[in-house]
């Protein structure tokens, strides 16, 4: 009993001193972050502060130059051996990515496939699920995001909000342990933002671990467990949404928030 109590719950994501540079420009300058299992972390910050880059480091779409990223206790993209890090075989990287869902600002649905085909593609080809089972689950997922009747529509026939909801269903079809959202509503017309945020709220309520880059402060306040403010490649401060959004400690956070909230009341 005491053994179990004292063992700290393993965080779902642990980033330690993550550095990333593009040529000369250092984009991430040492990111330290922990996201507990079931936690919803909202990442906010000005354009160019490195939010997208950090998300892409978590599923190894970008290689990091220093530091470590652990997802569910497993080092992402490398193997530890002595005091060296060995790059993983691409097959291993794919296996890790399969457990991490990602939703993009521009949806990135596969335009040559229908909504249903978008959702079943990876379960069929990566997980090698039997087709009937994959289709059945895909229909259930499309139903969950409110798009049951759009299963056979091509992305070009869907609105932005519908496309983004298909994209969420597509990511969920892999049964991820973690979902990464990179400004999922920034490319949407204002009236379509709500439907996507609602789906995300439902996910959060179901206990999905999520990292959400967003400018939707209302969402961060009521769906987020934690808000982290990023600027210039570092996390300036993080804490409960109420604290960070209402009483930011740092001047940079304050300046950013007044800009954002001023722009979008």
């Amino acid at each position, binding site marked *: 009993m005491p053994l179990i109590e004292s063992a700290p719950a393993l965080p779902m994501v642990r980033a330690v001193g993550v550095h990333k540079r593009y040529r000369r420009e250092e984009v991430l300058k040492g990111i330290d972050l922990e996201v507990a299992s079931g936690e919803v972390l909202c990442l906010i910050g000005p354009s160019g502060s490195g939010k997208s880059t950090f998300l892409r480091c978590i599923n190894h779409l970008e290689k990091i130059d220093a530091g470590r990223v652990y997802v569910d206790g497993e080092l992402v993209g490398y193997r530890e051996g002595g005091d060296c890090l060995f790059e993983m075989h691409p097959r291993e990287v794919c296996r890790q*990515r*399969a457990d991490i869902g990602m939703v993009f600002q521009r949806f990135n649905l596969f335009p040559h496939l229908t909504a249903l085909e978008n959702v079943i593609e990876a379960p069929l*080809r990566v997980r090698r699920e039997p087709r009937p089972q994959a289709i059945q689950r895909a229909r259930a997922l499309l139903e969950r995001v409110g798009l049951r009747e759009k299963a056979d529509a091509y*992305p070009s026939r869907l609105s*932005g909000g519908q496309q983004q909801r298909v994209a969420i269903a597509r990511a969920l079809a892999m049964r991820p342990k973690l979902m990464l959202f990179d400004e999922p509503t920034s490319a949407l017309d204002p009236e379509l933002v709500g439907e996507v945020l609602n789906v995300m709220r439902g996910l959060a309520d179901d206990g999905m671990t999520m990292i959400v880059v967003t400018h939707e402060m209302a969402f961060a306040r009521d769906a987020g467990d934690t808000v982290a403010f990023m600027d210039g490649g570092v996390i300036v401060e993080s804490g409960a949404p109420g604290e960070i959004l209402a009483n930011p400690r740092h001047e940079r956070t304050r300046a950013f928030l007044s800009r954002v909230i001023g722009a979008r009341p």
Partner: protein
Amino acid sequence: MTRVVPLRRPWLWLGSAAVLVVAALLGLSIWRNPNIQHDVIVQFQFAPAILQGLRTTVVLALLAAVIGAVLGVLLAVMRLSPSPILRLASGFYTWLLRGTPLLVQILIWGNLALLFEHLGPFRTNDVLTPFVASVIALGLNEGAYMAEIVRAGIIAVDRGQNDAALALGMSHPLTMRRIILPQALRVILPPAGNQFISLLKATSLVSVIAGGDLLTASENISSANLHTIELMLVATFWYLMLTTITSVGQHFVERRLGKTGVGMHAAH
């Protein structure tokens, strides 16, 4: 109701009339030309030797197109691979084969026996018949051109597609095959159709190594009966038939591709 009066375009009409007159005169000068024996054209238009050559031309073009397409995809993927060695190899291949005349390449393949008497356990001339040499020369050359076409197609696919596929755990080859190439096809097909038309005509070059194609057949006959122009007209007719059929086919394929609702540009 106001009447719409179309703009008058006298020069357009005049120009069109002039073109028609010139075309008619040209046709007439061939038709009435005493130096052309029309009965020779009629005699050979469907002659077995000519039809055999025609078949060879078609087979040659199809084989070379298949080799070229496979090679083109391979070279394009190599060209875009993370490995500098593969990129360099692909670049070198394209540089070499696009940088030298096809005629020279055909002559080299046709005369390879002068360079290597044996290919492994076989005598070069037994393996590399004029037909085989023609297929190889045309196919390898076609590959270099297709590589550029395929590469342009792949590059035209939005980078986000690659990100999305990788993020789902799909491997690089799987992403290429299932996500990138099917989308690239739309960009690839129109220039690939033009490339095939060029190839149809380029097959005539293999007549220099007696490749057995339509032009070889025509030349064989004309060198015996000396009716050079007549036999070239016979060949011209067949080449035009082939390229016309290809163009029509290309048109339909492109129209179908445009219609299937596979909009590459998602509505935002």
